[in-house]
């Protein structure tokens, strides 16, 4: 069964996630509440238009991002800028689910390798991400 569901899953693509500040999301975080707006502005990946076309992802569609560190479902949004192969995400509990820690330098890299596919249910809730898996 697991094999069949894997077969019918949407195709996966390689993507680099660049973690960048977003004024709208950080302004919402300054309100000091875990609000719906804060979640909507955090659970998002801004994608290159050509990538979206190639991967059959429409603006506002849920996408799954995953790598060896974790898996999240966020909203895919069309970016105003060109950045083929790169998805932009604000710093939040969502992007941090994919991020890794460079033990040698003690740094947290701003660019993360991940994979993307269409769909896979509802956007992951912030409180769900606060739980230990």
């Amino acid at each position: 069964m697991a094999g069949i569901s894997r077969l019918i899953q949407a195709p996966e693509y390689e993507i680099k996630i660049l973690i960048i500040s977003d004024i709208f999301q950080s302004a919402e975080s300054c309100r000091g509440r875990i609000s719906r707006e804060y979640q909507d502005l955090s659970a998002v990946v801004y994608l290159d238009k050509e990538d979206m076309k190639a991967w059959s992802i429409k603006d506002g569609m849920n996408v799954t991002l995953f790598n060896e560190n974790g898996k999240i479902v966020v909203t895919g949004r069309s970016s105003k800028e060109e950045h083929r192969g790169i998805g932009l995400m604000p710093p939040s509990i969502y992007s941090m689910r994919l991020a890794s820690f460079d033990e040698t330098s003690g740094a947290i890299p701003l660019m993360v390798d991940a994979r993307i596919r269409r769909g896979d249910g509802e956007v992951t809730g912030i409180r769900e991400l606060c739980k230990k898996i």
Partner: protein
Amino acid sequence: MSTQVTATCPGCSCLCDDIEVVIEESEIREVGNACRKGASLFLNPDHPAYDLDAAIDEAIEILKNAKSPAIFGLDNTTIEAQRIAIKISEKLGCMIEDYSSIRYGDLLNFVVSSRIKTCTLDDVRDRADISIFWGSDAMSSQPRHLSRFSYFPRGEHKQKGWEFDRYAISIDIYRSPTAKVCREFLKVSPGQDPALMDEILGILSGKPPGSKELLKFSNEIKKADFGVIFAGSGLIHGLNRDMDKLIWFMEGLNEYGEFYLIPMVKGYNMRGFVEMMKRAQRQIEGSFLRALLDGGIDAALIVGADPMSDLPYSLSKKLLDIQTIVIDPRDTPTTEIADLVIHTGIAGVDNGGSAMRMDGVEFELVPCIKRDTPSDEAVLTRILEGL
């Protein structure tokens, strides 16, 4: 009846001191001059009342019983609170760390110890011919930086402003909102910042340029009497934390004019924490992140920080295994997982104190409304006394 006061915003390390706040019936009704971020902060509602005495007793108990506690965060709190937190760490003999070395490597230590030449934002406004945003996106993180200091304003010796007197360039791995506003954008591939530095100094010393853009930028550097690099974490990552390369580049630029560097720090008082540690003759001992990963911490006192949103899950999940106390005005994913949350007021809104702008200039944060919410300083002082 409404009153109007001028306040200082703790929304970012610009510490804008021209915020017009309209107060009516002890509530903030309007906020003028602030950016979106700053306005959100001032219009923050108060937290519901809670038993502060019980919370402080519990915090003391957790810290007393811990075998290896640690203190973390502190970039978004006042200098006064930072000083008390340093004292608590001395009392407990424990580690204390902020995000400065995690995000910027040794950059801040090099700046506060004058190994890298720095200047004030007022100098920038009055004198800078060229502003270089390298791996930093002021428009998203310090939104009024360009309008108050680095690009748009008229300054004492810069009366013609950005149209004629100033040149601003963004060097980054993507076209950020700052890049869209600056006159030029130079795209650098990830990790290629050292090579770009070599190329720039090469062109300045007469080598042929690799592109028209680089030639233009190098000519602007040659023309400038006073230039500033606004260094963000993107530059530090791009340099693979190699500060010697940065020092070498700054020295190279200084053969052509006066060139300075200001770190575009994230927390509103990160610069203050680094200065306070220096004044207390303390150094960061060990690494909070490594200790967290290795299970070397059994209790964490987190002040003004949200590690659940700032640290990779492989690290932040460890906070769920230990006793976590959070002192913060906000509700965050970290307050969600904490064993104990002590909500405090916002400095400059509910409470007073002081903070250091990104350039090391100190500002007083005067409360503009009266609420009962305690300050970080008051809570930490009581914890210190209890210990």
